[in-house]
Every structure is written in C-alpha cells, then in structure tokens.
C-alpha cells in the first residue's frame, strides 16, 4: 500500500500559472496523478494545464476535495503558501521551493504543530508511489512499483539510486525527497515510522548527506527498535570541507558536527548496511534482498 500518496490522492498545484508549476502539473497528470486544480491568487476562474485555477486554497479544496498540494511559488511567498494550505485542511503539503528564509521555516514548523498537516520539504523533489501517484518533479519513468522505500535529502542522488534499483530489478514502494534545507517538515525518522507501518515496504534505502543530525536520529530510532525492516544507507560528503555549504542550505559541517564519517558510524552501529560506492547502490540492495 505505499505511504503518504496513492491512487486516491487528489492534488492541487500552488503556483500553477508559473513556469515550473505549470510544467510539472502537466508531467504529474501524464504520470497519472489526479491533479484536480491549481491556485494562483488573482487567476481564479482560468484553466491551466487542463485544470481549474482558484484564487485561494480554501476555494480549491471546497471545489475539488483536494487532500494534497505541491507548492511551486517563489521563496518569498512560500511560507504564506504553506500556512494557507495547512489552514485549508490539506493533509499533505509538499514544498518544492528552494531558498526560503530560515526564520520563515521556524514559524512554519511551529504553526504545523497546531494542525494535522504533514509537510514534505522545502527544497525537495517531492514524493512518488510508483505506478500510482507522483507529487513532485522527479522523472517518473525511472521508477518501478515494488517493495523498497527510499528517503533522501538530495534530488539527483535519489534519482541516481532509483535508476540503479530499477535496473537491478528492485521496485520502490514510495520514494520521498525530504529536502536539502536545514529546517524540514519531515525527517528521516518520521519517514521510517511511516514505512514501518506499511505492508508493501519490505526494506528502506536512506540517502544521507553532511549537516545536521537527521541520519543520527534515524540510526537511534533503528537502535531503539522503532524501525525493524532491513535498511541500507549511502551518505554523501566524505570529502566536503568544514564550514562550507555544499549546494544545499542544510549541507554544512559546522563546529566539527554533521560530518559524513559520524553519520556513517551512527548508521553502521545501528546495524544498517552501509553502501560506500555510489555506483553500487542498486546492486548492493538487490544482492542483499535476494540472499535474505
């Protein structure tokens, strides 16, 4: 049954009249996602990418029954868009936007504690349950339905891993790009709790990178018995210098904390299979799952 998104997910696109929003609305529709509308203030009543546009998320939800949204609005308006979606009662809010001020994210995270919405991202590629629903910007065709869950802070590295998995005959239950920012709506540990409950998911591949403590937290969850399925991990950034942001706002080693080495050590000590060679991700997972 996958996690978070499936055949029944009804999606709206905030920022659908923008270049990115419109482009990816079409690609999501082509993939088979039920994109039921879009939101751009001031453009209500128009049609875009073949779906109706609304002025507010509230109007879109009332008219379409949407329960998920994917946000493409510019960084300065993204916090407002996330809060609006949560206020309208949207269950799953996926924010693709990169470059959101960190103080905005502090506020958004706090606000989300007071409602039942889940935020994926920001600065993420979104998520996909192959064959059923794609809410994001990843290339859909590389995925195959299957039993491995994938979680990653990086977009292209996740695509790379998925490509290798599919080539090795390993399908995916749900692939979640949690985002490259320092403050995110959903952590690796949050995703593992979801995958633990999901019957379709038999193993999880975690793609980590330098910065923060999310890989360590995931390792602790596994150690404490909160996630019991086979798990694999690749962590990027062994050669990254201290104090520099490696592309992602969250990918920074500061004060000696957040190194790839310490993350690999934590994951390894929790019994997670560490993959060292990024070109051997698919092969390693396939071999291990076939022998088990």
């Amino acid at each position, binding site marked *: 049954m996958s996690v978070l998104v499936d055949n029944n997910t009804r999606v709206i696109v905030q920022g659908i009249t923008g270049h990115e929003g419109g482009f990816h609305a079409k690609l999501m529709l082509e993939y088979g996602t039920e994109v039921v509308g879009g939101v751009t203030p001031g453009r209500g009543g128009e049609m875009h990418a073949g779906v109706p546009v609304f002025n507010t998320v509230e109007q879109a939800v009332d008219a379409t029954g949407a329960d998920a949204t994917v946000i493409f609005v510019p960084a300065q308006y993204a916090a407002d868009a996330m809060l609006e979606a949560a206020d309208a009662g949207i269950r799953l809010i996926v924010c693709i936007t990169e470059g959101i001020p960190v*103080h905005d994210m502090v506020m958004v995270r706090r606000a989300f504690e007071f409602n039942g919405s889940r935020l994926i991202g920001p600065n993420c590629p979104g998520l996909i349950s192959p064959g059923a629903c794609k809410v994001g910007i990843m*290339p859909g065709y590389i995925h195959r339905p299957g039993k491995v869950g994938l979680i990653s802070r990086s977009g*292209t590295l996740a695509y*790379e891993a998925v490509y290798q998995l599919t080539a090795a005959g390993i399908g995916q239950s749900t692939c979640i790009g949690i985002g490259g920012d320092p403050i995110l709506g959903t952590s690796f540990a949050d995703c593992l709790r979801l995958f633990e409950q999901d019957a379709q998911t038999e193993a999880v591949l975690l793609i980590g990178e330098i910065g923060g403590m999310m890989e360590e937290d995931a390792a602790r969850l596994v150690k404490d018995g909160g996630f019991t399925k086979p798990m694999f991990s690749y962590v990027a950034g062994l050669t990254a210098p201290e104090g520099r942001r*490696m*592309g992602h706002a969250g990918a920074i080693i500061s004060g000696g904390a957040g190194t790839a080495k310490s993350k690999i050590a934590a994951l390894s000590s929790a019994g997670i299979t560490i993959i060292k060679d990024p070109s051997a991700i698919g092969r390693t997972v396939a071999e291990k799952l076939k022998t088990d």
Partner: protein
Amino acid sequence: MKLQEYQAKELLNRAGMPVPDGEVVTTPDEAAMAFERLDAEVAVIKAQVLTGGRGKAGGVQTVYSADEAKEAALRLLGKRLVTEQSGPDGVVVKNILVEEGLTVEKEYYVAVTIDREKALPVAIVSASGGMEIEEVSRTQPEKVFREYIEPVFGLQPYQARKLAYRMGLEHSEIAPFVDALLKLHVIFLVNELELAEVNPLVKTEDGELVALDAKITIDDNALFRQEDLQFFQDSADIDPLEARARAAGVNYIKLKGNIGCMVNGAGLAMATMDLIKACGGEPANFLDVGGGAGKEKIRAALGILVADPQVEAVLINIFGGILRCDVLAEGIAEAAKTLDINVPLVVRLEGTNREEGIEILKQAGLGITFARGMREAGEVAVSFLRSNA
C-alpha cells in the same frame, strides 16, 4: 553571509548595544590617525578576517602610540593571516579595526541562533567567554546554558534571568546582562540572522557590559526584505573562481584537488567528489550546475573548471531526468567549442536520452572519454592524472 567584526559591531551599536570606540581603516597612516582620534592610552589593532583563531595567529595586537598603531597596521595589511581555522593559505587582511583598549574584568559568551534539529531559536550563554563555544561545549558542557525561544513570543525577560542566575552572575550584573541578551535577541529577530554571537561580552572596570567581539551570519535568503543589510554585501573575501561562479549563478566551491568535476544536483556532486577520492584522486571542486542548467550555465561552469590551473582532468557526471541528457550534451558541446580545453574530459551520462547525448558529444569531436558507471568515470579520470600517466 558572515559579517566582518566591524560590520557586526556596527549592527549591534545601531541597536543600542555598547561596543568599544573604534574605526575601520585600510592603510597604516589611517591606523595612526585613528589612534589619535580615539584619544586612548591603549588601542587594539584587529585584522578583519572571517576566520577563527585570529588572536593566536597574531591578528590582534595591542599598541600604545600612533606610531605603534601604524607599525602594527603595516605588519597586517595586505598580508595573509594563517590561523588554525583558515587553512594553510590563510586569508588576506584588507581591513583593520583600530579600537580603544578596555580593562576587562570578566568575559562572557552570549549568542542567539537557530537550532535546526528543534527548528527553534535558542539563546546560548556561558560564563567562560573568550573561548570557542564548541570547545567549551566539548570540554565543559556543564558551563554552557541554553534557553529555547518560542518564535511567536520571542525571548522573555524571565528566560534571560534564568540564564543569568544559572551562569552564577553577581547581583549587580543580572540586570545589565538580561538587557544585553534581550537586545541581542531583537537584533537576531529584526535582521533575520542565522547567528548573532557576542564573544566575549566583557564587563569593564566601571561595570558596563560591552561587545568586544562579535560574529554575525546573515541569512542570504532573507536579504530581499532586509534592505539595511544589503549594504554589507561586498565584504566577503572569496576565491576569484568562486566569485566568477557566483556571478554566473553556478554553485561552485574551490577545493585543493586535481580533478575538476561538473555535476547536476548537490547530492550527486558530493557523491562524485567522494568517488574521485575513493578512486585515488582529489576533487578540485564542488560544482552543481543545477537541475535546470541551460547552455549559458554549462558554459560558465566548464570555463571555471578549465581555468583552475590545478585541474588535470575534468569529470562530467550528469543524471538526466526532466532535463534530458541530449540537451545537456548540446550545452557541453557548444561550450567546449568556445573554450580552450587542454585537459582530458571524462563524461558519464545516465538517464533520459543518454544515447542521443553521447552521440551529440561524439559528433562534436572533443576527444571525450565516455564511462558507463560513476565508478568507471572516477577511475578513468584518475588514470589521466600526470602522476599516473
């Protein structure tokens, strides 16, 4: 973006936080004049560099006359200051701060920053000021105190008082300390800072609390609505190739190695660097051309890689998704035509329209070596290094 000390102090001072009298100068003569104007018996000459360990490396000097100020400035200005944290090349001193010398009774640490795990602002204080807080946290964690800040209400006076009493401050110090911490929090909030750190916050002989040194990190993503901070933009001391990359909108970090790499996506770029190292090479850079890299960006990126004299081979690792391999290949082929490339190019293309992409690059006749997987790409690039040739 990190502010220089003098810029950080300007921001603190504007918000009513006491800082020592001082002036930033760029020549030895100006340093002498600044000393005269200070009208102080003793002054401190401080190199303005964005790296830690400055004091130990001789970047802070005490002077007692205008002549001494001039001499100290002469020793520092235009020179490379090599500190424990600067790396072996050090950083060039372009500005120095000439500041009145204070008689210090006590040194404290105060900071407001964002705890990314909790997604909350946090005030961090210690009575062991003057040292690096990471060092104190490691060796004497019981001397570092934290209060998390509710973003809706902000730091409350009672929280600042709690911290002051936990630090063991004297009765007379409590009120000024609370005042200083609350001011620092407002500065953090109003300017949307990532870090507002005063270390040390010193108690002078007349009991005043003064910010003797400060580190401020601005959130570049908030600059669009922080007009006062945009003024600080130009001070960064960055590598010329990094400056060129920034102008072109390319995410590039110069490193020490000999294999240049161009990758789409930050995570894949880091993985490629790690792979180069695992294959026995050293990455010359981090370079993410971005998800929607157009021809102009690819051209700029490739130009930067081949302009690095340390680069002996270039590895291009592209995973084509929405942005197809053939489109990227056209960009590379066009860029290569206009650039003078005299190092071997190793290309690994995977994903959408891979075959078409390879065909385009073969037609372009650039003498590219194609690799099938990432591992092979790394190994081939390393085999091209002069030391292996």
